[in-house]
């Protein structure tokens, strides 16, 4: 293993005449004494990384923004990544960067402007939701998982209630299933619309995001009139949904549906005909079929690589077997294909909503359940197709009123993992076109 580069690159203390003075004053002034106890380098001064003429009391920048971890490497891959060859350098992107869709940090190894290797650093949003769920009862799990993937939280709720319903053998009323599909597909449209806007924003186009937010705001307000919340809906329940469709929701939905398809097409032409956008995405970050399968990529990213895998058809749940819709696929596998797939899916979702509205049955919206849920001991797995791919949950019950283990499998994790194979060989400026086209949401990844 090579010598730890962090220590080698650390700037030595600048030997100046002021050193003796500052030591003497630090002994006298109580502020400095406290400072010395926090950090032993109080008497040393460091040249600033930005401007060597500026002398800093502490070497602030070097530790904080150093991409190299301040501890010895532990794995084969890590030591391979953190050793530089001739002409290579590290560049740290994030964690606070407007284009990283949350708090993602990418340590990139560059050769000139070309990316050689990437090491994504995760965990900045880790909240330990799985552990919290083990200490919550079955009703509480629903609002614990809500804020994970904040752009499509209804799908988190859906994935959470499905294994519990399996464990308890609950028959969900048909009207509740229709309402779930209706609201879920609405949110899928909202999420895909935002994806298009953010992709354009990451490539430098400001206008599409504004149009995306018009659509999203309409959908979110619509759902707020149904559920009472704009983002964290807490609407699905074990055995049904929380409230029946109301007049305000239906009238808003009717208004929106009358222009949805036309508006979607109009928003799409904003980008589809844009030559700069096409040139920056076509042929960039090509993900082939085999790599996608080996990496466990799902959702639109997998379908853009030519695999027609969609949980709604591959392993149907709810009322999807009764509905008519297509699974759009594309063969190219580049960033542009991943963008166009989402457009096609919006059209299919509008078709599904249309069918739901025409076939909506009457009846109850909740199954009859006891107030304290104690499923039989056992295990259940269920998956839904969220806007980002297959979102699965695995619940183990020990017969008490809290899940013994509650596992959430978020599609964004594996969708982001494949970025470390897509990025090498590309230019630094394409990083965002590729990462953004994979549509990761860090809240779901970090759990």
């Amino acid at each position, binding site marked *: 293993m090579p010598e730890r580069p962090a220590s080698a690159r650390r700037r030595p203390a600048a030997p100046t005449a002021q050193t003796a003075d500052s030591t003497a004053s630090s002994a006298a002034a109580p502020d400095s004494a406290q400072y010395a106890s926090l950090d032993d380098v109080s008497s040393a001064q460091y040249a600033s990384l930005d401007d060597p003429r500026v002398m800093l009391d502490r070497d602030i920048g070097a530790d904080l923004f150093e991409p190299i971890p301040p501890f010895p490497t532990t794995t084969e891959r890590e030591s391979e990544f953190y050793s530089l060859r001739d002409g290579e350098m590290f560049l740290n992107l994030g964690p606070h960067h407007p284009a990283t869709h949350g708090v993602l940090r990418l340590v990139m190894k560059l050769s000139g402007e070309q990316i050689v290797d990437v090491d994504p650093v995760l965990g900045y949003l880790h909240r330990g939701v799985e552990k919290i769920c083990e200490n919550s009862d079955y009703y509480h799990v629903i609002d614990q998982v809500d804020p994970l993937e904040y752009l499509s939280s209804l799908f988190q709720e859906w994935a959470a209630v499905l294994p519990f319903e399996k464990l308890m053998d609950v028959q969900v009323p048909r009207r509740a299933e229709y309402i779930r599909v209706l609201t879920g597909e609405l949110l899928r449209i909202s999420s895909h619309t935002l994806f298009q806007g953010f992709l354009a924003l990451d490539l430098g186009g400001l206008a599409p995001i504004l149009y995306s937010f018009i659509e999203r705001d309409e959908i979110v307000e619509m759902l707020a009139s149904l559920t009472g919340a704009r983002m964290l809906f807490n609407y699905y329940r074990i055995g049904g949904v929380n409230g029946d469709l109301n007049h305000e929701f239906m009238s808003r939905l009717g208004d929106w549906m009358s222009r949805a398809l036309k508006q979607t097409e109009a928003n799409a032409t904003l980008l589809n005909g844009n030559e700069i956008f096409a040139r920056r995405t076509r042929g960039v970050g090509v993900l082939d079929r085999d790599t996608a399968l080996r990496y466990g990529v799902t959702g639109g990213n997998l379908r853009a690589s030519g695999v027609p895998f969609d949980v709604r058809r591959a*392993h149907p749940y709810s009322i999807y077997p009764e509905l008519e819709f297509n699974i759009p696929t594309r063969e190219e596998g580049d960033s542009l294909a991943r963008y166009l797939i989402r457009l096609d899916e919006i059209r299919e979702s509008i078709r599904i909503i249309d069918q739901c509205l025409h076939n909506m049955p009457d009846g109850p919206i909740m199954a009859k359940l006891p107030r304290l849920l104690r499923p039989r001991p056992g295990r259940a*797995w269920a998956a839904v197709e969220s806007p980002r791919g297959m979102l699965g949950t695995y619940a183990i019950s020990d017969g008490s009123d809290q899940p013994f283990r509650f*596992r959430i499998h978020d599609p964004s994790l594996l969708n982001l993992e494949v970025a470390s194979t897509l990025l090498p060989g590309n230019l630094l400026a394409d990083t965002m076109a590729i990462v953004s086209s994979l549509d990761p949401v860090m809240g779901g990844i970090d759990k």
Partner: protein
Amino acid sequence: MDRSLKTRLDARLGALLREPVYQRNDETEIRVDPGNVPEVLTILHDAVDLRFEILADLAGVDTGEVMQVVYHLWSPKSSDWLRVIADGLSREDPRAPSATFLWTGAEWLEREAYDMFGIIFEGNRDLRRIFMPADYTSFPLRKDFLLPDDAARSPGAGVRHVERSQAPATVADDPSAGIRRAPVS
């Protein structure tokens, strides 16, 4: 429930199964020894009548007595989800073979299982912590890891105050109180 999957699994994996194939709802479950995992996964992935080509999930489980690694697989040849449980990893030194030779994407899922349970996946090139800081020393999803605040034990957090018959034991009184519930299989 896919009855024919059971016969296909028995024919292909007969001797490698620890227990008979278990089926319920739309799930089929098999249990194998951790050492047989690479062989079993390869057969499931490559056999022409099985073709489980999509790794839906890889999760660690602490049952209170042993550790498990749970794989969920999907195949176009079956209408069931397949659950493969690598059962019987010791809690002191949990070790399992890596699945990265088949699904490269399992690397991060195994990192997560290592981070949360301390399960060592032999053959994973990059087995380090993924969510917790690199200098962290505990494994948070193990059953003997208690949340450090009493919020986790308050009635508001959903602890079963309804049915608790005696005063709750603290960890200081009794170290085994850390494992809160009866083990499940």
